[in-house]
């Protein structure tokens, strides 16, 4: 069976320890097959985490499962190996989760199938933080041992997670329709996990820089949230959802239109007018007022420049680093609170509508809506 061979793609690691253990017990063969496939969630997690059979046995023993059930270490070893084998056999089905539902080899109740899939596609935030925005290529895969060393996630687990990203990316890349929805349908994942995968795919496709030191304070969830904002508002799909690749790439027309926003900083009158409107609104409402007033022009230039440069792929990649450098860092050094930030950005956005000569309200809203929520999310320690 080809599938089986494929499923045992990495036999060296697993079956190696498998046989050492068997020799010890002089048990040449030991299998247990249930009509309903028995899977222990704890062991599944250990397997997913890339532990060897022996490590898994150790962990389980420490967990006290033996005392609970009056069993011996041999029993635990036998059970663990059995489960590992079952998972390996299931693995190829997990690669295309829709097959799991109508395959005949394993009788697994649907709610259990859902758990298997969800857990298989779950990932470690520390790991994903390392590869987020990187090209999902063979080169990146080769560097996974470094990632493993750095994050403490086993290489095996790193590979599984990386392959999952790649697999989802490949399937979804060419599909029409909403990105999150496509992921959910093809991989039968939960809403939350589908959205996370959508963000991962989006970041990988646009190659956003996330690894710089200045960005290290941001978690995957911060990025996933921002990614979701970008997908929902800045892609082609946000306006027209029957276009190919629509959710994966940013809306080029919109990016062009963003250049028009430059007027906000290029036109001196407009800039001053904008500043006075914002300052009037803010006066007396925050302790950081003085700093806001002093920095207004700088901050506004920062945000508008980011918008204007987004037509360049290179600048798109630096989107997050720019946000941090041009806006978040200055504010932080002035000790703005999160509330200050909220107040400032709200008035900054709204005041632009009152400017008589500013005609790009729609683009401004589409841009600032995302920027606002991204900065709110990213403004923390």
């Amino acid at each position, binding site marked *: *069976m*080809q*599938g*089986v*061979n494929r499923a*045992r793609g990495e*036999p060296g690691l697993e*079956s190696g320890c*498998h*046989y050492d253990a*068997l020799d010890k017990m*002089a*048990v*040449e*063969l*030991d*299998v*247990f*097959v*249930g*009509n*309903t*496939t*028995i899977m222990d969630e704890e062991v599944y997690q250990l397997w997913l985490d890339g532990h060897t059979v022996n490590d898994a046995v150790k962990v389980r023993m420490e967990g006290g499962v033996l005392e*609970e*059930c*009056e*069993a*011996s270490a*041999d*029993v*635990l070893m*036998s*059970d663990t*190996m*059995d489960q590992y*084998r*079952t998972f*390996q*056999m299931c693995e190829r089905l997990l690669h295309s989760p829709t*097959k799991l*539902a*109508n*395959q*005949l*080899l*394993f*009788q697994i*109740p*649907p*709610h*259990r*199938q*859902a758990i298997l899939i969800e857990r298989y596609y779950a990932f470690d935030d520390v790991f994903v933080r390392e590869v987020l925005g990187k090209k999902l290529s063979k080169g990146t895969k080769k560097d996974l041992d470094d990632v493993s060393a750095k994050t403490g996630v086993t290489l095996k687990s790193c590979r599984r997670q990386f392959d999952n990203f790649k697999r989802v990316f490949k399937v979804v890349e060419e599909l029409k329709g909403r990105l999150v929805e496509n992921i959910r349908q093809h991989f039968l994942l939960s809403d939350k996990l589908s959205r996370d995968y959508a963000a991962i795919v989006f970041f990988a496709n646009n190659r956003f820089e996330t690894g710089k030191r200045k960005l290290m304070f941001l978690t995957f969830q911060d990025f996933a949230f921002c990614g979701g904002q970008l997908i929902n508002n800045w892609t082609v799909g946000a306006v027209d959802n029957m276009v190919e690749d629509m959710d994966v790439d940013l809306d080029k027309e919109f990016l062009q239109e963003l250049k028009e926003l430059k007027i906000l900083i290029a036109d001196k009158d407009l800039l001053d007018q904008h500043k006075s409107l914002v300052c009037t609104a803010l006066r007396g409402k925050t302790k950081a007022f003085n700093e806001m007033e002093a920095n207004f022009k700088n901050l506004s230039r920062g945000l508008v420049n980011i918008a204007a440069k987004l037509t360049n792929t290179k600048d798109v990649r630096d989107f997050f680093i720019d946000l941090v450098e041009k806006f978040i860092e200055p504010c932080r050094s002035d000790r703005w609170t999160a509330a200050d930030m909220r107040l400032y950005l709200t008035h900054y956005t709204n005041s632009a509508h009152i400017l008589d000569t500013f005609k790009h309200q729609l683009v401004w809203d589409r841009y600032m809506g995302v920027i606002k929520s991204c900065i709110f999310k990213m403004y923390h320690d």
Partner: protein
Amino acid sequence: MPGKLKAKIVAGRHLPVMDRASDLTDAFVEVKFGNTTFKTDVCPKSLNPQWNSEWFKFEVDDEDLQDEPLQITVLDHDTYSANDAIGKVYIDIDPLLCNEAASVISGWFPIYDTIHGIRGEINVLVKVELFNDLNRFRQSSCGVKFFCTTAIPRCYRVAMVHGFVEELVVNEDPEYQWIDRIRTPRASNEARQRLISLMSGELQRKIGLKVLEMGGNAVVGYLQCFDLEGESGLVVRAIGTGCTLDKVSFGSAPNTNTHVHPSTAPASNACNSPSKDGKEPVFAEDLPSFSGPPTPFRVLPTSSSSPPPFSPSKPCSRQSSSSDTDLSLTPKTGMGSAGKEAGPLKTLLRQQTQTALEQREFPFFTLTSFPPGFLVHVGGVVSARSVKLLDRIHNPDEPETRDAWWEEIRQEIKSHAKALGCHAVVGYSERTSICEEVCILSASGTAAILNPRYMREGCLDTGNTEPRFDEPSPPSCGFCHIPYDELNMPFPAQLTYCYGCRRQKVPDVLFTTIDMPSEAAVTGKGCLIQARLCRLKKKAQGEVNATAISNLLPFMEYELHTQLMNKLKLRSMNALFGLHIQISVGENMLLGLASATGVYLTALPAPGGVQIAGKTPGDMSNEHHILTIQKRINDTIAKNKELYQINPPELTEEVVGSPIPEPRQRSRLFRSHSESSDELSELDLSHGKKDAFVLEIDDTDAVEDIHSLLTDASPPSGFYSCNTEIMPGIFNWTSGVQMFTSVRVFRLSNANLTNQGLNKIFTDLCENLLKSFYFKLRSMIPCCLCHLNFTVAVPEEELIQVAVTAVAMTFDKEQILEKPGDKIITKGCIEGEEQLQFSMELCADSSGISTQQLSKISGVPESTNVSPRAASVDYGSFADRCSTWLELIRLKAHTIRRGSIKTISSLERSSPLPEGRSRSLRSNRSFGGSSVTVVKMTPLSFLPGTRIIKYLGIINMFFIRETTSLREEGGVSGFLHTFIAEVFAMVRAHVAALGGNAVVSYSMKECMLMENPNKNQAQCLINVSGDAVICVIETDQEPIHTAVGPRQTCSSGADGTT
């Protein structure tokens, strides 16, 4: 042209990639039946082809329909080279030939290849149109229903049990044909699979013909096995019980009348010697056959020159003890309360039964559980073994020689049964163990006396042909009463008056191969009891080897029985059900495994303790050692009593039980039997000559043995285990069901192994397997492992293989204690006893007993005198009157319960079939939109919480799997794991295609694994069988004996425990 077979190929899915270049497949399908082949179009470049073919029609004889499978081959079209086979599907047409079974086969089947395993699935539609058969002298037996279930299938009523049917067919094994040298392993495997499928079909057809000849319409307890003899051929053989079954129609509930006839010991038939004593072995023709004795153990080493432990023929024969005959018979018939008026009638009935049974060559029944009242008395286990040399078969292609072998064994079984005063053998089974050219044939069963009602034509229709009279033996204990003559017991046993009815005699222990009758009264719970044994043997060939084996056999049987008896006593139990003794032969050892379910039958006396005795008294350290062991044993017994909730009303025992076991008389009888065989007197140890069971420690071996007795771990709390259908003492099953198969192979190290060392390894292997099960299934607690079926084999010189199939079933802990219906009554009983303790103690006055005993010992015509006397004594005590009164209530409760079944089931049955079916389908489809039908599997004849509404036909499948990339598939474990999972998948797919949602009476008959890790190769053969059924969720709380709480639903079964 009696039949038209139609097949349509709809679609495929998940096909493997056959063309590496395009990563796709150009698939087409060949449909073959007999010599006719049709092809579909090629569906290019698709892994999920849609063929939607026309209907392929085959016009064939119904004989062929029975023999041949429909063969579907999926191929990859290749323009330039030969087409590559993707895999095959064999579909057994048989279920479609019976109008009561399935009407169409439709569904997704796994495409199976013997080298690659399952490779995608194919959707097929099959129908059969049968024309009226005008030929009276037909060769086919379409319409005869087959059931693997060893009980009367639920939703049928038995009108008549015709009896034993057997058949055996032989063919050359394709693997040993010359052509095998030039063909591929795949071709060879497929030839074998196809041949066995053909032979199974032929066998079934022939058995069907025999049943039709008998006037029956069904085979129940159908047991088919195959023997791979190697060079001499491939044998497929089957046994079963021919019956006439009536489908239970609306309103007519199963016959629930209970007529238990106290049948007397057979008067006329001379007690044949259980074995032809002193016969010298003749190899290849009649090798020493060894008879495993009934309950109390008896060794009959016919092969050796040593005389049998007691000379069976003389003392047993009627002539030598004619004076006793009268004495023992008259009182016996008079003993029942029915007394005189019933007497003659009973004799008549008995004679009728006997003639009905004697007309048959073999009064054997493969059933293990029976309609109430069918089983009258049970004598004990009868078994026979014989060693044969396969290379001495004169005409290996013909079945005659094997037929003769089996005939011989069956004759022996029959004569053993007669020796036990029984006219029938129930729970009968046969098996073989083959190693090279040596073959051990074994048969075993339970000698019994059956109710003639089911045997005679026409009498069941009215059910009233026999006048009703008060039955002296209540159903809860009647089957325990001895069928043999107590003065001429075929073996020494300790008899007492029955603790249930106090009127008839019962043995101290009872061993049987059947399931416990549902009406039997038990105290506490049962448990799995296993005796395990390894015996080394020198490697040898031919006759020398066969002699060595046949010399070892009796000792193995003896030791297994001793172990069983000891373990039974340690658990404070007195009866074994479902006893299976398997002896497997290897090149350098013999393996023996006896499994049974121990219980405490309320009707039988409490087992004495186990006592340790040293042979060298005076040695202080030894004495101390013995004391410690004794203490450990006593502690174990106490612990077990608590564990299995065995709290028999001990005081009643003394009152009732004491009058009969008169040591002196027994020993007198015994002496007369065993005078000639002093050197074997040791063997009598296991017969319970003394009240307490004595183990003598005379050497280190004995110490080891005792240690090994004590090492058996009891199941962890929350678990029970048994090898019978259900656990005696548990009634409230819930719907959690998990069937599993587990296989372990142990490699012995090269070190010089002793018998003791081997025993330890083997015992540990079995114990560890059980421990693994408990651990794996811990989420199902409280739960019981039922039908634990162990099979052992010695596949190679240094390998021991143990394969287990069983089912874990959950039950409701809250009501664990009693049968719902019995609850109040038993409570009343206990209360009554508590109140009466004082008076009973008075009764148990030792002087009273001793006088009774004296009177008996003096040898007066016992029963006539004593039984009224005993009765009068007992009646004097309030205790007895009270408990008879309770007994009466109990009996009434039985009838009340039965009555309620009747009404409820008739109501339920009035729901039309299609509705039931749609219900079942709905329940399957309801989970999460999965397109795969959930198919439950169980080795039992039922699924708790559900009701079987239709039997769709038997599943009998044989698969071979081979690999030349063992390492890549995860080693032998990975290989076998995948294969077993594939077999399950194929069984489920076939059942689903028949429209079913469950397999009952599932069993794995064979799991033969051969490996060669050095060559990276392995091959495995698996044979499975079962009954495909449709079952629906039981919604009402029905007070049947598997009564279940109302809160269980089938959907909960899907929670990881389908």
